[in-house]
């Protein structure tokens, strides 16, 4: 049985922990609101862009070629893993890393290299055998277009220079505050939108200005950036959601702990008082006799 003093200091420490987790929950909730708005508002743009890419592919008869479409024999893959910089967000990073590790297990270390966004992933893979070619971190869970552009430039550069033949993305797709779906997508090469078999007469005759090729090249570079931005926004929103829930649970647990400890404390206090009373009474009895 711990002494009263010990229980008391234990309660105090749990209380201050609860204060911290409560504060973190509120901060995460505030950040989540913004991140969630960002993630959901960016979707229509990304969707419209995919739609436009599709109609462009359907409409342009003949060969459409762009370096980003090029599917070649895969000798080297790159995995882009998006994790968070900071912890205390439940199983968020663990799940992402597990998924990545699971995927990586199919390959030997010489076949895959890693691009890690976020500190947590880097901390894990630094001690593993896969080579890390780039690590982006410390942007405070907010989207920064300059960094996004750098990442895209780096990835497309490697792909174009044939240093990698296929780029995969593992990131949490934001579904709702408590649900994010860990997704594994191919970033490059971009899957060519199906050119539907052109039935004579039914195909829409598009006018292209300036020409299909120029439009393609502009659309593709916008497309890769938009995809990356969407991925990052989703990841931020998921991170904050995950943290909010983890911290909410922690606050609740701390509350329960405090209740239990208070109960133990009061019981111990009562026992002590009873013992003291007994002593006094028996002392008085002894004097009387």
């Amino acid at each position: 049985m711990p002494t009263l003093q010990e229980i008391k200091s234990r309660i105090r420490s749990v209380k201050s922990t609860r204060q911290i987790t409560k504060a973190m929950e509120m901060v995460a909730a505030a950040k989540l609101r913004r991140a969630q708005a960002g993630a959901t508002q960016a979707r229509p743009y990304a969707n419209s862009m995919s739609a436009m890419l599709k109609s462009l592919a359907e409409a342009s008869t003949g060969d459409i070629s762009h370096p980003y479409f090029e599917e070649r024999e895969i000798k080297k893959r790159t995995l882009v893993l998006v994790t968070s910089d900071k912890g205390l967000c439940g199983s968020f990073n663990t799940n992402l890393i597990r998924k990545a590790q699971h995927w990586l297990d199919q390959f030997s270390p010489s076949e895959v290299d890693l691009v890690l966004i976020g500190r947590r992933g880097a901390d894990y893979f630094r001690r593993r055998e896969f080579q890390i070619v780039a690590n982006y971190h410390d942007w405070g869970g907010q989207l920064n277009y300059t960094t996004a552009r750098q990442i895209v430039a780096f990835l497309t550069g490697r792909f174009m220079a044939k240093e990698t033949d296929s780029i995969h993305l593992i990131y949490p797709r934001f579904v709702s505050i408590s649900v994010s779906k860990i997704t594994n997508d191919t970033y490059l090469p971009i899957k060519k939108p199906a050119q539907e078999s052109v039935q004579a007469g039914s195909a829409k005759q598009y006018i292209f200005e300036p020409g299909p090729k120029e439009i393609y090249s502009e659309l593709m570079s916008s497309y890769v950036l938009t995809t990356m931005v969407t991925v990052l926004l989703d990841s931020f929103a998921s991170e904050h959601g995950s943290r909010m829930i983890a911290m909410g649970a922690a606050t609740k647990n701390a509350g329960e702990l405090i209740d239990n400890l208070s109960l133990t404390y009061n019981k111990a206090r009562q026992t002590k008082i009873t013992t003291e009373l007994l002593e006094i009474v028996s002392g008085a009895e002894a004097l009387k006799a």
Partner: protein
Amino acid sequence: MYRLKIVTPVKVFYDDEVNSITAPGKLGYLGALTGHAPIITTLQPGLLTVRNHLDTISEMAVSGGFLEISNNVATILADSVEYLSEIDLERAQAAIKRSRDRIKGLYTNEETDQDRSAKSLARALNRVNLASRLKN
């Protein structure tokens, strides 16, 4: 009357029935009425004029993007759009200065992309031009 959607990376800017639009295509301004032939074009920074289904005209500054029209639906994917009255003139002027300095190579220490600086200059110039046009 047809449907116009203007979407930017930040939000859906406009989604309504319109009678006509005039957009700054790469090869020059183009107007589109109901039943326009399918077209896909890139846009350059310029003035986008929209006449909605009540024949109210609104003018906006668009800073590049794409326009697709098919089946009486026009979609504009814009890098950024704002109504002329909402242009932040000071910010645009600061951007002009910054891009000019970049192009001149004043910031040699940081990574500057000449192509991007030129594009951002064009965007800022467009904003200033259109905003001052509104004033006069």
